[in-house]
């Protein structure tokens, strides 16, 4: 085979730099083979670029320990290369955004270093996945937060570097809230230990004694690889009164989990939004639920039976049943420490639901749905099935706020989505597909608007960018921090309206990374977006927002 078949050219790494990487991790664990590098370049998920390839790294390394990570980072500094951390790499964020980047695949750093049963925390490395941590924790009567991206993802990546929302948030909170300590290789290769760890006092407290840098290293959305590499972290674990192993036959659609004692799986439906809202607040006040999410019927059907939804969506009556009659619902898993407790919890739930004119259906002990679905919620195991309908999905309007604000966003998102469904720009999921979760017994919560599309349909691919802009503008209109704070395309527009957050992030980056060795594309840099093609009405709204909300040198607009 000759290189004539190669029609594209890419940046390459110098032999000298490559040798330094080999010296850092061992020759077996470095590659610059284009086919290998493309394994890190194909990043179709949550990527609006129809090509789905991101920048190709010039090399990939597989360090086995913190010292090797440091050596790699130092080599990058010496040779004017950038680096980008990669844990399990699901989603466009782990991809490189610059030329001359070395991808640091942390796959060999995969251990659970410790589970401290008494103090309820685990110390883990980057490539330990959510399912592994949960399986080991459950054996000890503990449980670990798993984000909505599912159990294949790295709890370390999530807690240290990006978001952290999941259905178990009502009981187990949000990514960075669970972070109790971190070992951090800074962009110059030095190691910083965050929290009590730095004082030699162990992994139990992120805020000292010792430096508390959670705000800087993580913030709300995470630095997404832009501030160095986290090599270890400790995460808070929670009570798990269930069995040491959730005994399950089958793998997914055929899965049947043995109903554990003291566990109930409820599907609740309400007559209207107001009653759902009220019930959710009351559930929070009663400190109810181990798992909670809004039931998005279209999403459920599209995930578990996409062909069915395609047929149903053509039938008015069925469509109405799914999208109207079952619209206002939530899915709840209750777990008790004893039979008495679960009986009490269930009684409280029933009273709340019936008090709002709702219906509640227990499906764990009394019906087949619970045994089939329970692992999907406890382990978040069905998430890759979201891709069954069309091959890909994306998300918008994702932020954390109070429940009723989220419901406003969900309603707005539904309207936007319906227009794009009507135009044939995305798949029909009945439009109402918000991914909603609560944190900490509903002191706050999360909503995002999921949309599914057919990755092989050019019309769908062409919709991605305008849809992104429309959602982003809608977010600003609703005084909402758009998901696009982590999207380089809109930072230039959005940052001035949000206190120039981006300039502050750049200052942090420069302070920690004088040589600009970290790939900061996902963290604080900007790329141009062609706004000339967007819908004139949306453009007008955007211009109006910019004029109204942009901060001056002195501070916020009056």
């Amino acid at each position, binding site marked *: 085979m000759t290189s004539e078949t*190669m029609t594209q050219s890419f940046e390459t790494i110098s032999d000298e730099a490559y040798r330094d990487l080999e010296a850092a991790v061992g020759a077996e664990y470095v590659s610059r083979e284009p086919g290998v590098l493309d394994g890190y370049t*194909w990043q179709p998920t949550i990527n609006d670029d129809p090509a789905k390839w991101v920048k190709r790294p010039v090399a990939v390394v597989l360090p086995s320990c913190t010292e090797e990570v440091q050596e790699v980072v130092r080599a990058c500094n010496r040779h004017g290369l950038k680096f980008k951390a990669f844990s399990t790499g699901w989603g466009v964020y782990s991809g490189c955004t610059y030329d001359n980047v070395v991808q640091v695949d942390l796959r060999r750093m995969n251990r659970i270093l410790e589970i401290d049963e008494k103090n309820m925390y685990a110390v883990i490395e980057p490539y330990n996945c959510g399912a*592994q941590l949960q399986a080991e924790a459950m054996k000890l009567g503990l449980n670990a937060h798993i984000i909505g991206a599912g159990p*294949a993802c790295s709890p370390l990546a999530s807690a240290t570097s990006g978001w952290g929302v999941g259905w178990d948030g009502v009981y187990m909170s949000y990514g960075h809230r669970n972070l109790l300590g971190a070992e951090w290789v800074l962009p110059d290769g030095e190691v910083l230990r965050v929290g009590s760890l730095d004082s030699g006092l162990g992994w139990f407290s992120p805020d000292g004694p010792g430096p508390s840098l959670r705000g800087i290293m993580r913030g709300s959305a995470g630095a997404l690889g832009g501030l160095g590499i986290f090599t270890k972290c400790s995460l808070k674990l929670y009570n798990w009164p269930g069995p040491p192993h959730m005994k399950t036959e089958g793998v997914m659609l055929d899965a049947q989990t043995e109903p554990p004692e003291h566990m109930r799986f409820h599907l609740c439906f309400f007559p209207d939004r107001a009653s759902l809202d009220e019930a959710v607040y009351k559930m929070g006040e009663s400190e109810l639920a181990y798992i909670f999410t809004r039931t998005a019927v279209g999403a459920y059907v599209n995930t578990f039976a996409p062909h069915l939804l395609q047929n149903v969506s053509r039938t008015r009556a069925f469509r109405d049943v799914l999208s109207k009659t079952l619209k206002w619902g939530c899915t709840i898993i209750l777990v008790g420490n004893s039979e008495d407790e679960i009986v009490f919890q269930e009684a409280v739930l029933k009273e709340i639901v019936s008090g709002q004119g709702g219906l509640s259906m227990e499906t764990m002990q009394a019906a087949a749905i619970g045994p089939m679905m329970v692992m999907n919620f406890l382990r978040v195991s069905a998430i890759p099935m979201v891709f069954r*309908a069309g091959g890909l999905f994306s998300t918008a309007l994702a932020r954390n706020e109070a429940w009723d604000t989220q419901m406003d966003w969900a309603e707005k998102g539904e309207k936007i989505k319906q227009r794009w469904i009507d135009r044939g720009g995305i798949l029909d999921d009945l439009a109402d597909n918000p991914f909603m979760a609560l944190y900490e017994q509903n002191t706050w919560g999360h909503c995002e608007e999921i949309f599914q599309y057919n990755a092989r349909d050019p019309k769908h691919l062409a919709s991605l960018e305008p849809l992104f802009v429309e959602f982003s503008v809608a977010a600003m209109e609703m005084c909402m921090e758009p998901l696009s704070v982590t999207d380089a395309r809109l930072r230039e527009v959005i940052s001035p309206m949000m206190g120039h957050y981006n300039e502050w992030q750049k200052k942090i980056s420069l302070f920690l990374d004088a040589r600009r060795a970290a790939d900061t594309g996902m963290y604080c840099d900007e790329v141009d977006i062609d706004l000339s093609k967007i819908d004139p009405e949306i453009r007008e709204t955007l211009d109006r927002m910019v004029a109204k909300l942009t901060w001056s040198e002195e501070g916020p607009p009056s």
Partner: protein
Amino acid sequence: MALADYKRDMEGCSRCSSCKWVPFNQIKSWRFAKNCPSICRYNFHAYSGSGRMIIGNSILEGRSELNDSVAEIIFRCQMCGACDTACKVYRDDIDLTEVLLELRAYCIEQGELIVEHMAMIDALKREDNVLGEPKARRGEWAQGLGLKDINSETCEVLFHAGCRYSYDPDLRDTLRGQVRLMLQAGVDLGIAGAEESCCGGRAYELGYRGEAENYADDLLSRVKASGARTLVTPCADGYAHLKFLYPRMGKELGCEVLHVTQYLQRLAQQGKLRLRESVPLLVTYHDPCHLGRMGEPFLADWREDKLQRPMSLKRSGRKGIFDEPRDLLTSIPGVELTEMERIREYSWCCGAGGGVLEAWPDFALWTANERLEEAKATGAEALVTACPWCVRVFRDAAAESGLELPVYDLADLVMLSAGITETARA
């Protein structure tokens, strides 16, 4: 089909990494959570099912080229199907195993050959078996058993021994025992003896499709001549090829195809095989990939948009042979079965398949040792399986690593219980 015909499958990869893990509902520990030997051993994403699909897509898009090292990556894979099965737990529109097979065929087309595989194919062409043993000695194992010779007689049941069983002296007692169990039950059994050839499946997996077709034609004509209504094989590899590959190539054998464990289980159920003696042993059972998930029969080709493919036509691996071996095993008095964490369609591979044993024996043994450790962790006193390739590599791996765990073919225990004295060795 050509590589380009699978572009949509390759582009469908969301890069979710499910193909690297046991289906998530079934992950029971940190230690045994992973399913793909190749990525576990070599770590770069390119060594996963997803990574290989990305390589294919990258080549088709002119982003990278096929060269020696890329071909090595493509072939350092057991073709065990664990990635495909895991992907299909969640997806309907990606046929990962088919992409892997297509990539291998593409390598051969482009002249990117693995030396050890070439040697194997040369031996196959010369001696009609993948071990390069003399063709004339293929039927020697059956001496004195009084089996019908299908070259001159017809029979009800054709026994296809397969390459490994025909020649591996260590497995001979097992093979003869299987046949004696069937004869004792009164089965009208015939073999092709020295005229038996490889089924061609291994050639197909290595990308040599022309050879595979020839061998399929060969077997087809033998089955026809034998008049057999049933073909029984003890080779799990061969079983999968006869059940899936042959019909897919349009080669209908025109008879029922059974693995020997299925047949023996049937005989036991019919009362024709009596399992009387107690074999007091705590065992764990290893599902051979090609009897289990890869042994799922061919369903139908689906040339339309795979997003619209009915679930019933998806090759999910779940219709493979999982229950019969377990039923047979547990019907032996005294035998107690304890399961490993990775079983059935998400079983970990033995390491021998896909041409790995021949080209990279260290990788094959490493993979086998992983499984032996998992077996050991159950507390079992022995590992039982139902494929000669698995038995071979497990025994070699145990010998190499010093891990003390006897490895039996399921038939060995059946023989013991049925009082057949052709003794099995572990």
